[in-house]
């Protein structure tokens, strides 16, 4: 079982990167977590470039293809998904019938420094992933006031949120297991 973690933030010390590491710590031993690090290198989607999209897009699609499950952690920019992340989803959605995202189990979590925990960005990312053909878990984890959201050991300070994150991961892995078994 391979879980690919993708943060929509490009910042090296991003809160959502930290949230992914918190999620990684909750995964069972049989699940291998791999963090995707190539988001910034993916060029803007251009249909003219589709015949030769380049190595960054190729690597992104290949990483998705190797993963049994995708875990996205997104910040919220202007009430929506960061442009780089939406752009990556667009590349991975083409061609639609055979796209890397198609039928791939995916979950979305998110954190923000504000009081809403990137809940709109999460909803929009779930919508975009589903429209791209992914098998999206219909749950969210809005981590608000993220600068105060983590305990010293890296877990989420609010026990209910730590539990909710565990439940989302369990549902994601269950969907991946079903797909592997089929």
């Amino acid at each position, binding site marked *: 079982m391979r879980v690919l973690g993708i943060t929509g933030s490009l910042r090296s010390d991003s809160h959502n990167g930290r949230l992914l590491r918190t999620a990684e710590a909750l995964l069972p031993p049989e699940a291998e977590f791999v963090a995707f690090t190539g988001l910034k290198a993916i060029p803007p989607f251009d249909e003219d470039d589709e015949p030769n999209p380049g190595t960054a897009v190729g690597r992104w699609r290949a990483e998705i293809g190797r993963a049994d499950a995708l875990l996205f952690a997104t910040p919220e920019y202007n009430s929506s998904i960061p442009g780089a992340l939406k752009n990556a989803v667009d590349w991975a959605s083409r061609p*639609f*019938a055979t796209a890397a995202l*198609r039928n791939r189990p995916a979950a979305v979590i998110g954190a923000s420094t504000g009081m809403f925990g990137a809940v709109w960005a999460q909803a929009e990312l779930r919508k975009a992933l589903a429209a791209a*053909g992914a*098998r*999206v878990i219909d749950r969210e984890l809005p981590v608000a006031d993220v600068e105060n959201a983590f305990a010293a050991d890296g877990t989420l300070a609010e026990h209910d949120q730590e539990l909710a994150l565990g439940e989302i991961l369990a549902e994601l892995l269950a969907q991946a297991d079903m797909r592997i078994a*089929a």
Partner: protein
Amino acid sequence: MSATAVETTTKLPVGTWKLDPTHSSASFAVKHMVVATFRGRFENIDATLAVGDDGAGQLLGTVDAGSIVVKDENLQAHLGSPDFFDTERYPELRFASKAIRRDGEELVIDGELTIKDHTHAVEARGTVTDPHETLGGAVKIGLTLETIIDRTQFGLEWNAPLPKGGFALANDVKLTVELELAQDGE
């Protein structure tokens, strides 16, 4: 003027009747953007009508969910994704009749429709013809059926709100099958 007694056929044609897939179709129609009717079809279908000597019959039908055809390839792929039919996990739609009533050409079938592992009772209404000998001596009947289902009961829940109210897709979907069935010679 004397009244003429007309005998109305209430019995189904005895025998096993198998689908001629080339000359049969299964399609759907649903309100789109509130104002229009959007139609699509499934290419690969199968059906068998088996009628015993006592006149009791059963209609069984299957539809290959992945054979859905619409006019845009991206929409076609979306309809096969988990947002809609989820063909990876649910490759087949099934229908099994429970009771068939015939009154002349009119046909009413109570049955169970299964989509995405959701099974619900449906009543389909339509027509059935008497057997007719066709080319090469093949004996055939024609059968048409329509029913309206609430797609959300079958796990087809995708929708999108419109800016001025309403939704992109209605919940009620009309299903239509037009079947040409040939008498099984075996």
